[in-house]
């Protein structure tokens, strides 16, 4: 069957088998290997992507179910030349060790902050509770999300017209953070 999925803003049309899982469609058919294929049982959350604006576990969604819908992966988080504040928080606060869980963690964290810009540590832990860090680096993951929340709040306060997150934040380029 033929499907068209809008991935990170770009319409992608492919011929697929109906049994193809969304995670394999993203990784193997589209070459977007940022989403990780982990436990295969919807427990670990390494495969989390957004489907129509909501985080889902893509090892348990058929690619066919995304036909006609929007998907956002970690490749779609950063603006050109500038990391998303969540990505920057993970880099600054050492929110990753091996990095396997990181794309899913960041996508769920982004979703949380969009709905709840100043979450408590408990709310962050609850939001990420369906995702496993095999390095057990949870403390720094929580710090990374808190960093992003603070950064975005400061950006909003400093903004000339109360602009939302990402628009009024001090610019940080990807190269500055990853250097």
């Amino acid at each position, binding site marked *: 069957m033929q499907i068209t999925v809008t991935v990170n803003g770009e319409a992608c049309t492919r011929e697929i*088998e*109906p*049994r193809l899982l969304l995670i394999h469609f993203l990784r193997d058919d589209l070459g977007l290997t940022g989403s990780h294929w982990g436990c295969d049982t919807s427990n670990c959350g390494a495969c989390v992507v957004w489907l129509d604006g*909501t985080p889902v576990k893509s090892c*348990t969604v*058929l690619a066919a179910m995304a*036909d006609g819908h929007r998907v956002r992966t970690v490749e779609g988080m950063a603006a050109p030349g500038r990391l998303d504040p969540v990505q920057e928080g993970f880099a600054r606060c050492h929110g990753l060790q091996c990095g396997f869980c990181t794309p899913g963690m960041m996508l769920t964290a982004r979703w949380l902050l969009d709905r709840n810009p100043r979450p408590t540590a408990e709310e962050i832990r609850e939001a990420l*509770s*369906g995702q496993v860090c095999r390095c057990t680096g949870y403390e720094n993951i929580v710090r990374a999300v808190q960093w992003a929340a603070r950064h975005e709040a400061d950006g909003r306060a400093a903004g000339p017209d109360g602009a939302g997150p990402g628009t009024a934040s001090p610019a940080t380029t990807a190269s500055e953070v990853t250097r």
Partner: protein
Amino acid sequence: MQVPAQVEYEKAASVEHALALLDRYGPAARVLAGGHSLIPMMKLRLAQPETLVDINGLTELAYLRAADGELRIGALTRHAELLGSAAAGAHFAILHDAERVIADPVVRNWGTIGGSLCQADPSEDLSAAFAALKATMVIRGPDGTRTVPAREFHTAPYETVVAPGELLTEIRIPIRPGGGSAYEKVGRRVGDWPVGAAGVAIWLAGDTITDAGIGLTAVGARHFAAAEAEDFLRGAAASEENFARAGEIAAEHCRPVSDQRGPAAYKRHLAAELTARALRRAAGRARGEVT
């Protein structure tokens, strides 16, 4: 690597279209909603449908409405939507109690209420919650709509009265004043199926229990309910002593089995203790003492 076996796939555009597709493909077709139970089972070849009828496009089945003395929940409502519904929480705290401990937030974003009920896992939390609330299931088929009480919906583990060619479309819960409800669950870890769980809905007149509904899951309770304990409570005083006795009666009538989640004796203990705790909290809510 786990992948489902080859399968045909059809996207339903309306309830009528879904019913036509189910009719065309027959008993080897399965309805695909959130897929968070069906797809893992297909990966393990525990389910091997020939055709999937995807109903995720049926937005007409995704709703929560409180009107005319009932809460109506569309079968395609996601767990997260039920948990996020202020109306559902205001009328039936038990539903929010239960949803908070079902799977995890990301799974709740996509898994559906109707899918959980039709999966009919013997440890399903919502089966106990809806049994406690004495909900009604609305099923559509080629010959029209029929309604089935929640306690007659499940016929065996992983089996329901929904026949091939039929679709669960709605769950209705009567809204009755003077009540309170609560859900208590013990699991091995966050997001797991329960080792045991109890849900309670209770109605008080002063300090007398006028009616009670008790749901149990994962402990082998008939129809996910504790009818004998309900009978004991009706007309009794809403006291600690009676709550404990109701828990004992509930435990006596369930038939838990030992498995990887725990021994039968422990599950029986949980049935008693969690029933008593849920009664206590539900009564507190009915009196407006606890939230």
